[in-house]
């Protein structure tokens, strides 16, 4: 495909972000550190950390065995069962706790694998150009046009014993194309940047140019692509479990919802069976978007300055606007003025 007409390549965002990345990531370590100063990102990180912790220790702290069937079916939340019980008397809190691992594992694995594929395909295709690019673009376009969810359903059916990891891989295999496309566009514009040419002129070998000159500049995009894929993977996994396509004996939140749905929990008024799992998914998703937000704001200095200073602005009642520079005659400014005079 021709480079010039490619909508993504021509896409002003990509260049804009790119410049931003270039500007930001030079802060090196400071980027990672700085992201912690972003309140939104901080909230996201904390929430995510909690869930990751639960993913690790969930099975140990679960008060009951999530599989154990008891006669106390469909109990509303109580001191014994904080989140109530299922129709078969299983403890829902335990199911959620044990299920966190499955969700996190699939989300992260799928995110990592898909990001890996998209980076490799995208960067190679953007960097190599020519026929290799055409072929790789073709492949990613094919994966882009094939509807993902049905494909996942089919492939999951194809593989025996579709456990968590299988699902993760399937999601990854079907979900990398968009990322690759973005990555390709970025690489394409990076490849033409002077510092790449300069490295070449200086005699850097090709592989080093790819890995040490281009890739570091893609980190922010890779990171936000990764986060996007993780969200996509979690939602896909949960959806798959919900429609009963994947194994439901591995506990995850989708499985909980599957059981709730097939026992018609909502009609029976058992909201406690249905609502918490949904909220957990939304919470993880939100935390990831918040982190992504933080990355975005960090990567894009224009977003960052006001975002970081929102509090100060509010306190000083300054409205940062384009085209109407605020005039702030605060005490600090005047004092400094007088000192100077």
């Amino acid at each position: 495909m021709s480079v010039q007409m490619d909508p993504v390549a021509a896409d002003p965002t990509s260049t804009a972000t790119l410049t931003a990345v270039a500007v930001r990531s030079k802060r090196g370590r400071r980027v990672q550190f700085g992201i912690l100063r972003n309140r939104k990102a901080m909230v996201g990180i904390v929430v995510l950390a909690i869930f990751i912790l639960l993913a690790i220790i969930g099975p140990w702290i679960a008060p009951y065995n999530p599989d154990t069937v008891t006669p106390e079916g469909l109990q509303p939340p109580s001191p014994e069962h904080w989140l109530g019980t299922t129709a078969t008397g299983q403890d829902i809190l335990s199911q959620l706790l044990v299920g966190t691992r499955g969700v996190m594992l699939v989300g992260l694995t799928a995110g990592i694998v898909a990001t890996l594929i998209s980076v490799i395909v995208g960067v190679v295709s953007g960097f190599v150009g020519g026929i290799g690019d055409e072929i790789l673009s073709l492949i990613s376009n094919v994966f882009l046009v094939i509807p993902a969810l049905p494909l996942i359903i089919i492939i999951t059916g194809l593989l025996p014993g579709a456990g968590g990891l299988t699902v993760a891989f399937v999601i990854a295999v079907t979900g990398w194309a968009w990322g690759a496309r973005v990555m390709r566009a970025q690489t394409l514009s990076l490849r033409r940047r002077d510092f790449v040419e300069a490295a070449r002129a200086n005699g850097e070998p090709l592989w080093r140019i790819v890995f040490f000159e281009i890739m570091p500049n893609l980190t922010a995009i890779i990171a936000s692509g990764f986060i996007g894929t993780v969200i996509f993977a979690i939602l896909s996994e949960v959806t798959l479990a919900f429609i009963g396509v994947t194994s439901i004996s591995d506990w995850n939140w989708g499985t909980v919802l599957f059981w709730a749905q097939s026992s018609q929990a909502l009609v029976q008024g058992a909201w406690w069976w249905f609502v918490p799992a949904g909220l957990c998914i939304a919470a993880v998703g939100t935390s990831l978007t918040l982190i992504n937000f933080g990355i975005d704001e960090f990567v894009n200095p224009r977003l960052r300055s006001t975002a970081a200073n929102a509090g100060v602005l509010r306190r000083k009642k300054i409205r940062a606007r384009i085209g109407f520079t605020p005039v702030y005659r605060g005490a600090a400014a005047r004092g400094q003025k007088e000192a100077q005079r």
Partner: protein
Amino acid sequence: MTTPTSGDPSSAAPAAADSPSAAARVPVIETVALTKHFPVRGRGSRGKVVHAVEGVDLRLDAGSVVALVGESGSGKSTVARLIAQLLPRTSGDVLLQGQSVRVRLGRSFRRYVRNVQMILQDPFASLNPVHTVGYVLTRSVSIHNPGLSRAEREQKVRGLLEQVELRPAERYLTKFPHELSGGQRQRVAIARALGATPKALLADEPVSMLDVSIRIGVLNLLQRLKKDLDLAILYITHDIASARYFADETVVMYAGQVIERGPSEEVTQRPRHPYTQLLIASAPDADQLAGREERPAKGEPPSLIDPPTGCRFNPRCPFAMDVCRQERPPMFELEDGQKAACWLYDEGRAEQRAAAFGADAAAGVPVPVGATAGPAGAARGITNGGAGA
């Protein structure tokens, strides 16, 4: 689309005419009829090309500086990139110490690069924002001196920084490009190029982005390096005054072709080609505050896809004759090693020449614009006098 090259191949090496000894020396870099056409992309432009560089002959000798000037888009950077082998050439040849080279990738490319280093046009874009100065220089050193021990490498990097006057070296090693001023970045780029201990340095507008005070620092540095390391330097610039100041020879390009060349002093003080004259007249000059000659400087640069026939400057040239529109002028040799590709310098066109440049010019020495006007005496003197302080 090939263009007739200038008649006499030996004239490709202007320095040769100047000093007989130089003729014997092999130039570090020589280009012969270097040509580059870029294919044009887009609908309905099949087979069309941008005639970015056509038939350019250059010669870079050790310990000398050649300045390449010309308007924006005239192909200066392209020439440098062709020499650096960053672009494949369409035709013509590039000789490194008399040997034709055409390398693209891999080991042979790196071997070539060790001898010929390029500094890219934009110091803000040519350093990777994610790497420290230390990383950049260490890489350059280790690529070109594979066997070095760690300590030796560090030593060498430090040496490089000091060479470009970034002292103390330690302070700069851990800095990221954004923490450096434009001039400092430019110096890092130069240091990186020197890491390869090249024989030739292609400096593409190393100062265009800098303001005057920083600019002069970089130029002085290059000057020193030229002397100390016996470098051959190609200095590409828009700043004609700095070409005069810094380069031994100046080559003027217009629309992909060389239209005038000669010792810098001659070219800047007595430009022969109407374009060069326009260029020099256009340069801001504080010493020429009054009495600037109003010279119609109308017109846009020509399209390089369908360049004008004959002399490419003819649509804008106030002296254009019929022959200018039909035939491409060869390089006419003038005195003092100066050459110009303008039909006015054809043997049989003294009359036209006189009509164009006035009576003085009839002898072949057109009066440079403003050269007759005296310097603003007092001011100049005083300013100069205080310069040492």
